[in-house]
C-alpha cells in the first residue's frame, strides 16, 4: 500500500516530458509548504489546490499524463504570478515559471477559461486586451513630437494608452525632456498572453519590429507588467528600464518642490520581486515628501490581485486580494503611490479610490508646485 513515489517514474517522465513542463523543477519541489505561509490566494481560498504547492502538485500530475479537469484549470489559473512563493522557497524554485509552463500545456490541450480566451483573441486581433478600437496613441495630441529615430523610447502599455491616457501623456511630457520618443504603432507587450499560457508571437514580433525600426537602445516601460515582459520575454537586443528607474536617475533635473504630505508605496510584484526595483521609487518619493511604508513592503509586499490573469478570470478573488492589500496601508496617508496601472486599477476599485496614484502623478504634483512657486517668484 505504501508508495514511495515522490520520485518520478523515469520512463514515464521521459515519455511525457514536454517542453512546457520541466520535470527537474517540478520534482525538485520537496513540498515543504513554506509557500503556504505567503500565498495570498491560498489565504483567501483555503483549499490546497489554490496555493503554490498545490499548483506544483497539479503540474506534477500533468507531467504524469493525468487527465485534465476543470478544477485543475482553475487551480493553475488562479495564481497571480506575484512570486512571493519564489521569494520564500528554500530550494530556490520559481513556482510562477512552472505554473506558466503548465498553463501553456493546458492551452495547447484546449483547456482554457473563456475570459482568458477572450483576452487572447482581442490582443491578437486588435492589439490590446480591451478590444478597444480607438487610436492607441490618442493620448498624444501632437504627433509631430514623435521622432523617426530615437535612442530612447517610451513603451506606454495598454492601460496607459486606453484607460489612463492622462497618465500616458504626463509620463511622455516628463520623458520627452530627456529626448525620449514613443513607438508610432505600439501593441500589447504580450504579457497577458504569456502569463496565461497563450502564444504571444504576433504582438511581440510586431513590437520588436517597431523598436528595431526606430533604432531604440533603451525602452522605458510605464507598466510593471510590460517592463517584466520586455525584459524577460523579448530578445535581449535593447536595455529595458521602468519609468521609475529612468526618472530616479535624473531626479536632480526634474525641478521638484517639496510637498507637505505623507504617502505610502505599493511595490508592484513584477517590478519589485521579479526585478528588485525597490529603492528607486522610494528615492523619488523621499525627494518630494514623507514616505510611510505599508505593513508588508518591498520583497514581502502583498500582491494587489491584479496580475497573472487573476483579475480577468476570477474577479471576486482578485478584488478580495486588493482589499486585503489596502489593510496594509498606514493610517492617515495622503496617497497610495505605485508604479503599475494594473495595481492602480485594482486598488482604486477595492476602495482606495482617488488616493491611489501613479508615481508620475506624484511627480507631476511636485513639479506643478515648483512651477507655481517659481511663477510667484518664491524660488
Amino acid at each position, binding site marked *: 500500500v505504501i508508495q514511495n513515489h515522490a520520485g518520478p517514474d*523515469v520512463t514515464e517522465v521521459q515519455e511525457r516530458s514536454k517542453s512546457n513542463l520541466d520535470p527537474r523543477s517540478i520534482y*525538485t519541489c*520537496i513540498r515543504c509548504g513554506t509557500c503556504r505561509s505567503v500565498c495570498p490566494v491560498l489565504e483567501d481560498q483555503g483549499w490546497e489546490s489554490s496555493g503554490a504547492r498545490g499548483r506544483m502538485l497539479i503540474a506534477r500530475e500533468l507531467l504524469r499524463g493525468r487527465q485534465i479537469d476543470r478544477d*485543475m484549470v482553475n487551480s493553475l489559473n488562479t495564481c497571480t504570478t506575484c512570486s512571493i512563493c519564489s521569494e520564500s522557497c528554500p530550494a530556490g524554485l520559481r513556482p510562477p515559471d512552472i505554473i506558466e509552463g503548465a498553463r501553456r500545456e493546458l492551452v495547447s490541450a484546449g483547456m482554457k477559461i473563456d475570459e482568458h480566451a477572450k483576452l487572447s483573441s482581442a490582443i491578437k486581433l486588435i492589439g490590446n486586451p480591451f478590444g478597444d478600437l480607438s487610436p492607441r496613441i490618442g493620448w498624444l495630441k501632437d504627433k509631430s513630437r514623435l521622432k523617426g529615430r530615437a535612442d530612447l523610447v517610451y513603451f506606454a502599455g495598454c492601460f496607459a494608452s486606453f484607460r489612463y491616457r492622462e497618465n500616458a501623456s504626463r509620463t511622455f511630457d516628463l520623458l520627452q525632456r530627456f529626448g525620449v520618443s514613443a513607438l508610432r504603432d505600439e501593441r500589447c507587450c504580450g504579457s497577458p498572453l504569456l502569463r496565461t499560457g497563450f502564444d504571444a508571437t504576433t504582438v511581440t514580433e510586431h513590437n520588436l519590429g517597431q523598436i528595431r525600426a526606430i533604432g531604440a537602445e533603451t525602452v522605458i516601460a510605464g507598466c510593471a507588467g510590460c517592463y517584466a515582459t520586455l525584459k524577460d520575454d523579448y530578445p535581449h537586443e535593447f536595455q529595458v528600464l521602468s519609468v521609475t528607474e529612468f526618472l530616479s536617475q535624473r531626479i536632480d533635473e526634474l525641478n521638484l518642490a517639496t510637498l507637505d504630505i505623507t504617502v505610502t508605496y505599493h511595490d508592484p510584484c513584477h517590478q519589485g520581486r521579479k526585478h528588485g526595483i525597490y529603492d528607486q521609487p522610494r528615492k523619488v518619493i523621499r525627494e518630494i515628501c514623507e514616505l510611510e511604508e505599508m505593513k508588508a513592503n518591498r520583497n514581502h509586499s502583498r500582491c494587489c490581485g491584479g496580475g497573472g490573469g487573476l483579475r480577468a478570470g476570477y474577479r471576486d478573488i482578485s478584488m478580495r486580494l486588493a482589499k486585503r492589500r489596502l489593510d496594509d496601508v498606514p493610517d492617515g496617508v495622503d496617497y497610495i503611490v505605485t508604479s503599475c496601472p494594473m495595481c492602480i486599477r485594482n486598488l482604486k476599485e477595492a476602495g482606495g479610490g482617488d488616493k491611489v496614484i501613479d508615481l508620475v502623478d506624484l511627480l507631476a504634483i511636485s513639479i506643478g508646485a515648483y512651477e507655481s512657486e517659481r511663477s510667484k517668484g518664491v524660488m
Partner: protein
Amino acid sequence: LLTQIIGVRDEYHKRMIMEILEDLKLIVGNRVSVSPAELYCYSSDASSVEGKPDYVIRPLNVEEVLRVLQCADRYRIPVTARGAGTGLAGGAVPLLGGIVLDMSGMNKVVEIDIDNLQIHVEPGIVHEKLNQVLKPFGFFFPPDPGSSAMCTIGGMISNNSSGMRSVKYGTTRSYILDLEVVLADGRVINTGSKTLKSAAGYDLTRIFVGAEGTLGVVTKARLKIAPLPEHRKLVIASFNSAESAGRAVVKTFSSGLVPSACEILDRTTIQVLKQCDSSLPLPKCGDVIIMETDGSKTTVGESAQKIMNICIETAQSVRVVSGTDEMEEIWAARRLVGASVTRLNPSMSRVYLGEDIGVPMKQIPAMIRKVEEISERLGLQAMKFGHIGDGNLHVALFIDVLDEDYWDRARCAADQIHRAGIELGGTISSEHGIGAVRAQYMIDQWGGALDVMRAIKRALDPKGILNPGKMGL
C-alpha cells in the same frame, strides 16, 4: 473476466463515493471536495509517500468533525487529519484513501489566559501566528520547529514536534494541558484541565500527543506558555572534529549550564552554507557548534562567557554573537540549511529519508561517523546537522531526484541510518514522527511495547478508521 470484475468494482466504488458525498455535504456543505485537483493536492506531504484520498473536507468546528467521524464510522471510511501537510514522514497522507480532514481552517484563538500562563486554541492555528498573538503579552509557546511559519499546532501536537530550543524548553508534549478530542465513533472528550499539573488518573493527554491522529482528532488545545526571555546570545565554536565538538557540548552540560539551543553543523553543512552565502557569519570550516543562552542580561552574559571558556580549550575558533540581526541571520540559515543544496546545484535535492534520528547526546559524534560511513559506501553526499543538545541528528541526503538509482541508494542509506540509530540506543524519530516512512522500524524500536500501543489503538479505534497504515500499528 478480471476486467469485468474490476469494472463492476470500480462502478460500485464510484456509486458509494457519490452516495457518501451527499451525507458529507449535509454536514459541511461545499467544504467537501471530490475534485481530482483537490485529491491530487492532498495526496502528499513533504515526505516521499503518496496516497490519494476519496474526499477532502475542511471542517470549521467540533460539531462538524464529530458528525464526519460518525459518518466515517458508519461506512468504515478511513479518516486522516491534516494540518498544513508539512510533515516529513507521511503522517497526513491517506494511504488507504477515505477522508482527509484539513484542519487548517479551525485556526481561532479561543482564549488568552495570561494570568494562568495558558492559551486555548483551535488546532489549525499556525505556530508562528500563535507566537505573534502572544508576543505583545511578553509570552511565547516555546517549541520551535523549523517549519514555524507554516506548520499548525495540531500537527505539532500529533507529532510531538520540538525544534532547536527543546534542549532547554522541552517538546510540545511538555506544553499541552488539555486537549479536546473527537474519538473514532464521534464521542468528544477532554483529556486534561486548566491546571498546570494533575495527578487524576491516566495521563490521556500524553497518549494523544504524538499519536499522529491514529487515536482521535484534536479539535482544541490548551497550551502552557512561557515568558519571553529578555536577552539572547550565541556562542559559535569551530572544532577540528565532530568528536571534539561533542566533547565540548558534554562538558558544557556537565558544568550545569543549559543552553537554550545547542546545534551542530558538520563540515559538509558548513561548506554548503558558505558556498551559498560566503558572507554568512559562520566559521569557514570545521565542525561547528552553535550554543544559545537566554534569560536576563547578566545571566546571559555570564553563561555565554562560561560556554566560551569551555569551548576555547579545544576549539579552532570561538566567538560570541549578541547582535539581534546577526543572530537572526544565523538561525535563518540554519533553518533553511536542508534545502540550500539545491541553490548550489539545481540538479541535486535534499530528500527526507533517515533524517530524524536521535541518539544519546554523547553518541552524536559516533552517529555522525556512522552516517559518513554509510553515505560514502553508497556514494551519496550528506549534510549532518541538528540539535546535539538533545541528541537529535538531522541527516540531509542529497540526490538527483530524476535518477531512480539515486533514490534506491538513498532508501538504502536511510534504512541503515535508522538501524544504526537503534543500535546506539537511540530513536528512529526525535521530532518528525513515524507516519508511514518509519513504520517498519517500530517493532525493532519497541519490541513488545508495540503490542501495548496496538492494544490502545484497538480500544480507541476498534474499526481501525483513524489514519490507518501509520506508526506500525
